[in-house]
């Protein structure tokens, strides 16, 4: 069991959630409440990581953040270490490949809130922020929970992008998914098996939580009818 890799994965997942979910709330609410020219295009861009092969995303991130790119050079000059093959670069990649996993459930949840309610909140004198915090988020919490759980679980499991951008460096970019791959190459099937079981358990928990919340929501709607 590679605890360093597991801790690294958990840290990466927690930070990704901490960055992406709050940002996702604003993006998702904006997309749910407004109509504007090119909205479909914006939605498509945010959904792209769902269908894009991870290696394609990894390739572009490597090119965009590499030592010879303007972004890579600027980052190294400013921070003192390169962006690719470091935890920071991995976090940037993680936030990008998780965009749909955070935004989609949140957007669906905000869309399910009737416009009347928003209008009622506004006519009661609530500002947008108050309406979001006191009315909409409490209603959208199953979507919020799904976004958190999916983003977290997906970060633990991502392989292709992480390998290409991170390079499997122990304590820096070697996540639990990469550690499993590495253990198999090191002929340590027992180690790989144990870590796989840990990831399997975490994934089952994640799926369990999301299904439980959505079924509870359905039950409540049925009672309301």
């Amino acid at each position: 069991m590679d605890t360093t890799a597991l801790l690294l994965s958990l840290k990466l997942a927690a930070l990704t959630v901490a960055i992406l979910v709050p940002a996702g709330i604003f993006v998702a609410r904006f997309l749910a409440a407004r109509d504007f020219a090119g909205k479909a295009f914006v939605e498509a861009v945010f959904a792209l990581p769902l269908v894009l092969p991870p290696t394609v995303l990894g390739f572009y991130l490597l090119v965009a953040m590499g030592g010879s790119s303007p972004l890579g050079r600027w980052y190294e000059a400013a921070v003192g270490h390169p962006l690719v093959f470091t935890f920071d670069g991995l976090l940037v990649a993680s936030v990008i490949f998780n965009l749909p996993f955070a935004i989609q459930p949140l957007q669906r949840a905000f869309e399910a809130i009737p416009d009347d309610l928003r209008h009622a909140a506004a006519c009661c004198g609530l500002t947008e922020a108050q309406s979001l915090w006191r009315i909409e988020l409490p209603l959208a919490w199953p979507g919020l929970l799904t976004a958190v759980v999916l983003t977290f679980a997906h970060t633990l499991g991502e392989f292709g992008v992480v390998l290409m951008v991170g390079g499997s460096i122990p304590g820096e970019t070697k996540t639990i998914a990469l550690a499993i791959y590495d253990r198999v190459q090191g002929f340590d099937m027992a180690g790989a098996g144990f870590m796989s079981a840990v990831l399997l358990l975490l994934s089952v928990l994640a799926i369990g939580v999301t299904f439980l919340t959505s079924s509870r929501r359905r039950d409540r709607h049925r009672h309301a009818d």
Partner: protein
Amino acid sequence: MRFARCLGRFRLMLPTFPRRAVLRSAAALFLGLLAGAPVRAAQDAPLVAAAADLRFALDEIAAAFARDTGRSVRIVYGSSGNFRRQIAEGAPFEVFLSADEAYVFALAKQGLTVDEGILYATGRLVLVVPEGSPLKLDPELADLAAAVADGRVRKFAIANPEHAPYGRAAQEALESAGAWAAIRSRLVLGENVAQAAQFATSGSAQGGIVALSLALAPGVLGTARYATIPERMHKPLRQRMVLTKRAQATAREFYRYLRQPAARAVFGRNGFALPGE
């Protein structure tokens, strides 16, 4: 409150907001962040990029280095071609042990290394045949083309010749044996030679060509048998190591340690020919 009265008719629709659960998961998230913190502590140990054929030999040397000096290094194993690219892209490796000296020279030319490094070992190729495989254990690979033709070999594992030195050497050996054209369509390519060895012995392939150092490591090949391929069948696998421009004190000490008799003996035990002997 004004808005509460106004919202009265929507009240029934509001599901209970699980404040406690939210607080609890926020706390768990925070703990997760804290738990991640010690990861940073190990980061002063220098990073070593090492060719996959060194996997077991270098682990042994690094353990001895830690015992003798109280310092540790973090080793990443992979294909030399990949490391050459990653170092050029700014990967934070301080020592690079390549399985092919050409990659070291290329990095030196780009000004990314301290010097042109030194030769530390010469690698050898072996034919690996797992238990129960219909393939003959012939070091000259004479049986291979025939085995492909009569269907005895359906899959054959080597490392990717594009960026793994042992893959390239395996291709050269297969070409020398006149079996390359026949076996090309049957190849399974490992990302590096350790993965090729894993493929070759998994039971799904009928054989493979890998590094002698992996064949000698205890427990690696399991019940598979191997035969050392004559050196004349491929270009020598001249393995060169070098300090990158990022190298700090511990990396330099490890680099020196690798040239000591104790370390050389480990390389020798693991099937490498040593330079200067």
